């Protein structure tokens, strides 16, 4: 099993998967001729090249072997991603300040040490900095707290 869980084999699979997805969603695009190429010509060409490269990488990985993948730690990547998505959801609906508070809180949870006083201090500093730079300094059209400022 472990020889299939190597970095190279999995990246080969990833390339093949991207190629397949592109082929599937690109099948309705007209191919055209080599003289007058349709919108589908280059995408199909690239997907096929990508899939062959992916296949080659897989074969080489199985024959020559490659590094095993490290066991990923799920906590940082999950929390960081959730933080960014939460920011995106809150930013227009609630304003910069709530989005900032949630993002900094969630992102800080992803780290090793978590001290609530430090996190609050960080939030206050970043809120002041962002308001000054983006709202006052650059005059961007964003609201700090929706409906208030």
């Amino acid at each position, binding site marked *: 099993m472990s020889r299939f869980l190597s970095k190279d084999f999995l*990246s080969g699979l*990833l390339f093949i998967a*991207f190629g397949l997805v592109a082929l599937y969603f690109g099948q309705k695009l007209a191919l055209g001729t080599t003289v007058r190429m349709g919108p589908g010509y280059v995408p199909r060409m690239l997907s096929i090249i*990508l899939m062959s490269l992916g296949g080659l990488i897989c074969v080489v990985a199985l024959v020559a072997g490659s590094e095993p993948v490290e066991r990923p730690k799920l906590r940082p*990547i999950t929390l960081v991603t959730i933080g*960014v998505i939460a920011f*995106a959801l809150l*930013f227009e609906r609630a304003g910069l300040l709530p989005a900032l508070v949630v993002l900094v809180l969630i992102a*800080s949870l992803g780290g090793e040490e978590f001290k609530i006083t430090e996190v609050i201090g960080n939030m206050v500093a970043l809120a002041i900095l962002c308001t000054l730079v983006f709202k006052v300094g650059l005059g961007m059209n964003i609201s700090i707290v929706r409906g208030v400022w």
Partner: protein
Amino acid sequence: MDLLNNLLLGLSVAVSLQNLMYALIGCLLGTLIGVLPGIGPVATIAMLLPITFHLPPTASLIMLAGIYYGASYGGSTTSILVNLPGESASVVTCLDGYQMARNGRAGAALSISAVGSFFAGTVGTIIIVLFAEPLTRMAQKFGPADYCSLMALGLVAAVVLASGSVIKAIAMVFLGLLFGLVGTDVNTGAQRFTFDVPELSDGIDFAPVAMGLFGIAEIVVNLERRLSRTGGTIKVGSLWPTREEVRRAIPAALRGTALGAALGVLPGGGPTLGAFSSYTLEKKISKHPEQFGKGAVEGVAAPESANNAAAQTSFIPMLTLGIPSNAVMALMVGAMIIQGIQPGPEVMTKKPDLFWGMIASMWIGNLMLVVINLPMIGMWVKLLTVPYRFLAPAILLFCCIGAYSLQNSTFHVFQVALFGVLGYVFVRLGCEGAPFLLGLVLGPQMEEYFRRAMLLSRGDPMVFIQRPISLGLLITTAVLLLIMALPSIKKARQQAFQEEG
């Protein structure tokens, strides 16, 4: 005479108060991120791209360029003082720079590296001035087939820089090209891979991609590794090098400058490659190779000059041909497109003030860096003691706001999250992000040139080897690929990157 006039024009643009200010901001920001490990110039420039909307074109490019070469200055400072390279280009400086610091010669190492960098930057600027016009004139003879081959060369050369396996890097280029196709087909107006999302019809914006791949993914990896700081107290000591040190540093800096400048021009070259090669060269030709790694002056002077010379000359393909040679240059191309300037040979003829102003400002920026940074070293070192748990949320926040302000839409923030996850997968699987980003940026243009070339040749693919320019470029590409496949080169390359990691 023309050259002199152009330079004067450039200087007059660059010394305007506004442009000087943006050069200063760029240099300071660049030094800051160079000092801080965990954030590089690619993510920073991506974050700041939206802000450049509000600036005039020249000012924004001057600022972004300042970040790029400021970062290599900042990176060397921390390499020397605390053995922490802020940027990949200053990894080699750690080897001897930190040893010099431990021998009590930190001040000398810093001033040698700063003056060497300044000298290299000056030479680099002169080279840009000399090469810009002939290259631009040559580029104007390029047909669609030639451009297509040139881009192929650029993309393959970018693979040399990727540290993993060559074939994976090539696959990443193709994946990037594929992502670059998303959006409305220019020739037919057909929607490709847009999944009825209106925001995608203009294509995938590369700024959120760069933030995700280089910003978010890097933060996550650093959080996993529990990146900690070992600041400590460092004595800088006298900034004046001894006469002996100067005697040894000057020839090394000269060789480093020459090698760095040459490697910088090559597509795919850049500061990191220049620094590594010049360190190896110095070690090879030195009469005392055993001193390297123990505080040899040459080991600081050569790579520091080389990385700065390469940082300068890597602007040449971007400014004259519109071909970015590394990820930072790809973002610079994007910054120009945001401002409505199509990078390529026309920039010099149609926007001479922008072109020459930017070049002149690079030299001014290099001067600023020496003047600002030597006295401020203490402050930069203090910054190193800021723990990463404060920095990570701040970087994330700036990425999010930056992505939003691209088009005042939260769609791009979601895109950052998505490409953050993808970037994390890439890191885990040992796939390089830089070739992907280059493919993404060059994809649309390359398809355009490819289709035009095929249309002109009535569908005959032989056109790519019938035109001499295109043939030459393709042969170079093939030779590069072959060289990389050679076992001895492969081994040397692996070794070089092992030292880096």
